[in-house]
């Protein structure tokens, strides 16, 4: 019962990551790194045509190759007992039908679609044998070009079925009002296909522990979603499938879906009856695990000469596959960011013979913001106004789309923070005004927003005899530092030091949580952690009362990781030697357990959103300011400074949150200047196959990114006041850079990426 110094507040502190040591020593174990006895290795063989049928597949040579245990194709694959494919249903973007069923039929739907999987006793042998599989095809004409198929674009089926679906056309005020505006513009924008390319290649280790019990070590953002998909595929009770994703080597959205390679590994493990490890190649990462879809957009805008927007029409056509309807919120920001009495949005899809897309960081919003925020800049120039001033003149104090108050909005504060740090006052309105030798210097800004989403989450908390607390939740951590943030929340709630807390995640057997995506993890799992810890304290209070005091439960309080009780003359406390004369005494958590003869106390609590979404419009906001240098002879663009400011509610950990913002900014540099997955439409095959052709930012491309948070709690999203960071970190970055390039050069690039050929 020693006095302990009151621990300092952990929420907001720049605490080091709880799993940092594992990550810097190589001890962190990713999905292809589990050692199981009798391990085997699987390599996929992909279709070399884009559309058609398999007419023959010769696997003899592969079967005979040394070490090969099985070659599985549609001709010999056991058929999982899953229910029939459910068809196209965008309301269920997690594929639950056809695309999961590899080797199900002879149909080819996209280039590099898996047509066989070879299992051997080593990678080398499996890879060699995979090269021996020969296939014959009956080819059909394919379509892989969005613009050539724009005339066939359609309204998503879910919107057709349900007039309230958000993918329907949106209208406020007059239709296409911009056309009659005083000052107007109409521009087209293109975002090419971009690929997530986390550093960890997609990998899975599948192990049938019994004929009806499956364990998957898998790269997934949702252990429960993966469990649900494969339990369904194999018609197993969910509890018979266990999904482990303790460490995930990045994902950025591409592990929000169950993919063919996972089905293939599970099938292979069934056939060889041994654990199977399958890791995609970098080439395969382009073709079968999703991407940010190629999107065409047209934006019309009108304004009064003094800078009030009078109309916006924003249309887009996004790419999807022929077997799934993938949709994303490309047009969301246009409907709510700026005041405009008249807004029209129209979202369409074009189905191509390419694998399905999947949300990529700042999913549709980052695509839409490129058009909207570029157009804002274009309009500011037409009006001869500072783009920041133009945005301020059209600032919204309540949500013009839903006609609700914002839960909180501190975007103006972000503008101020960012403008000061980048030195916005140096910026000249006239393009090409600033230079340093051959380098033209320009400044640009872009705004981002994303819904402050929250879902239901459950956390289990357990106080152990040594006074440490173990928390568990099925959520994952793909990099933001979930376990660290939760440890800080628990430390503050329990009043104990973070090193006495362990937060375990990434296991489908743990209490339920939302999938890690859509910037919702801290918003959802944070409150569950907090409430589980509060429930634990309630139990402790009761136990403390039972063991030590006759004080009423509400008189027992907590301080510095100890329970504080009134020293009641008739109570049990005076039994404790030396405490007779103290008005109150403190008892440690472990003493309470000991005194009650209990090994541990536990509490499992579900926390979920209430009706706050009905009353308020809840969003995170960001603004990015870029300084670029463009070489006037070579067209090389260098981002020399990038400042990202966010209104993301309470910042739980300054260090990890700042890192996440910086990472989003780097992703935005890639989007703006280099990322472009290119298909040769004659063959329907990607010609960008690796990091030599598909460029992502490296050290030399990235400036020291500066981050500033407003750090004001949002009292409505949850009790912690968080709003989410992951998406707003990238949304608005690409247009900030494109606008800075215009400011430097006078060249408006509306098709990303901004490569030198477009500038000279």
């Amino acid at each position: 019962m020693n006095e302990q110094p009151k621990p300092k507040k952990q929420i907001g502190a720049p605490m080091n990551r709880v799993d940092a040591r594992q990550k810097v020593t190589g001890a962190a174990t990713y999905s292809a790194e589990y050692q199981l006895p009798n391990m085997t290795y699987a390599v996929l063989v992909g279709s070399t045509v884009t559309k058609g049928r398999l007419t023959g597949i010769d696997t003899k040579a592969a079967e005979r190759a040394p070490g090969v245990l099985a070659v599985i194709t549609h001709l010999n694959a056991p058929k999982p007992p899953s229910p029939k494919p459910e068809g196209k249903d965008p309301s269920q973007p997690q594929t639950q039908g056809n695309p999961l069923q590899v080797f199900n039929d002879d149909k080819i739907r996209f280039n590099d679609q898996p047509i066989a999987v070879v299992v051997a006793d080593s990678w080398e042998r499996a890879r060699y044998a995979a090269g021996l599989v020969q296939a014959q095809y009956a080819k059909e004409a394919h379509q892989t070009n969005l613009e050539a198929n724009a005339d066939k674009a359609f309204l998503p089926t879910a919107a057709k079925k349900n007039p309230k679906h958000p993918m329907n056309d949106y209208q406020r005020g007059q239709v296409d009002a911009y056309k009659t505006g005083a000052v107007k513009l109409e521009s087209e924008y293109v975002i090419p296909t971009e690929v997530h390319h986390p550093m960890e290649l997609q990998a899975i280790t599948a192990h049938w522990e019994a004929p009806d019990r499956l364990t998957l070590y898998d790269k997934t953002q949702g252990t429960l979603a993966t469990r649900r998909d494969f339990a369904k595929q194999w018609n197993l009770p969910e509890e018979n499938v266990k999904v482990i994703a303790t460490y995930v080597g990045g994902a950025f959205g591409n592990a929000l879906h169950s993919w063919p390679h996972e089905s293939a590994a599970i099938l292979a493990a069934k056939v060889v009856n041994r654990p199977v490890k399958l890791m995609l190649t970098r080439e395969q990462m382009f073709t079968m695990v999703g991407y940010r879809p190629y999107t065409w957009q047209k934006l019309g805008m009108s304004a009064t000469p003094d800078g009030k927007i009078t109309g916006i029409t924003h249309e887009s056509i996004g790419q999807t596959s022929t077997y799934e309807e993938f949709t994303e919120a490309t047009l969301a920001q246009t409907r709510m960011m700026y005041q405009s009495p008249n807004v029209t949005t129209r979202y369409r899809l074009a189905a191509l013979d390419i694998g399905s897309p999947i949300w990529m960081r700042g999913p549709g919003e980052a695509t839409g913001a490129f058009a909207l925020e570029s157009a804002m800049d274009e309009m500011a120039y037409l009006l001869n106004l500072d783009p920041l001033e133009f945005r301020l003149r059209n600032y919204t104090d309540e949500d013009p789309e839903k006609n609700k108050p914002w839960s909180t909005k501190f975007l103006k504060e972000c503008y101020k923070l960012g403008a000061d740090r980048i030195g916005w006052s140096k910026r000249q309105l006239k393009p090409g005004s600033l230079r340093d030798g051959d380098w033209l210097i320009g400044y640009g800004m872009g705004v981002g927003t994303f819904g402050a989403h929250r879902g239901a989450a459950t956390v289990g908390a357990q106080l152990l005899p040594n006074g440490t607390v173990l928390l568990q939740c099925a959520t994952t951590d793909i990099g933001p530092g979930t376990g660290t943030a939760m440890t800080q929340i628990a430390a503050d709630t329990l009043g104990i030091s973070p090193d006495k807390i362990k937060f375990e995640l990434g296991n489908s057997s743990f209490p339920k949580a939302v999938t890690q995506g859509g910037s919702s993890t801290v918003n959802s799992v944070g409150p569950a952690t907090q409430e589980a810890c509060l429930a634990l304290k309630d139990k402790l209070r009761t136990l403390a009362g039972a063991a030590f005091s006759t004080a009423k439960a509400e008189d027992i309080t907590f301080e510095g990781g100890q329970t504080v009780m009134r020293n009641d003359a008739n109570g049990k406390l005076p039994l404790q030697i030396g405490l007779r004369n103290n008005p109150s005494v403190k008892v440690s958590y472990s003493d309470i357990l000991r005194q009650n003869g209990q090994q541990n106390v536990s509490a499992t609590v579900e926390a979920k959103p209430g009706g706050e979404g009905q009353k308020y419009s809840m969003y995170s906001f960001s603004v990015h300011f870029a300084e670029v240098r463009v070489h006037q002879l070579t067209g090389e663009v260098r981002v020399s400074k990038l400042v990202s400011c966010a209104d993301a509610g309470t910042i739980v950990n300054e260090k990890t949150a700042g890192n996440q913002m910086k990472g989003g900014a780097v992703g935005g540099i890639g989007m703006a200047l280099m990322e472009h997955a290119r298909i040769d439409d004659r063959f329907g095959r990607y010609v960008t196959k690796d990091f030599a052709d598909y460029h992502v930012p490296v050290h030399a491309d990235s400036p020291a990114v500066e981050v500033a948070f407003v750090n004001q709690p949002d009292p409505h999203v949850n009790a912690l006041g968080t709003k989410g960071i992951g998406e707003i970190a990238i949304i608005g970055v690409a247009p900030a850079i494109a606008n800075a390039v215009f400011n430097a050069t006078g060249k408006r690039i509306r098709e990303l990426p901004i490569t030198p050929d477009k500038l000279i």
Partner: protein
Amino acid sequence: MNPEHDTPGSAHDEARRSFLKQSSLLTAMALVPGPLVQAASAELDEKVAAVFEKIPLKLEVNGIKHKLSVEPRTTLLDLLRENLNLTGTKKGCDYGQCGACTVHVDGQRVNSCLSFAVMHEGKKITTIEGLADGDKLHPMQEAFIKHDGFQCGYCTPGQIMSAVACIREGKADSEGEIREYMSGNICRCGAYSNIVAAIQEVKGGGQKV
């Protein structure tokens, strides 16, 4: 003290014996003409390959001497990850383009995916698992923790191995130089600013790396 490890299945003597057996059978069969034998020998080619595949290799990894038997086509990366269970070294591309697989070979940074294990006969390999001094982390590891030089952690072992070599090479004198000489190590999470800060701190601290 250098413990010696014999990896299971490293019996290359046995492999050589059965190769001899197989190849004399092959020679005998080759004397008999006809399509039947051609088919049989095609099949045997594979079998011959199977026994011929492994060759002996001596390596020192993180101070431990290994006597191994590996296929010539096995990369140093796969040997570390799959045979020696040193999964701290990561596979991010397998094409020498990302740096996730960076290890030190006789003190030099090397993309282990781009070199065959058998090219390193007698060499000393250091992986991320061998960087710390027992429980005491290497200063670069400490600096990565302090500056949060990672998010998902997958590129991290490669970044750290590369960063240590970058300082040893004398290529960490300025932020710009660090960015240039670390550009072979991609971090898709985009933790570059923090990685550079970590390297600068270690460089500035003047500790021996």
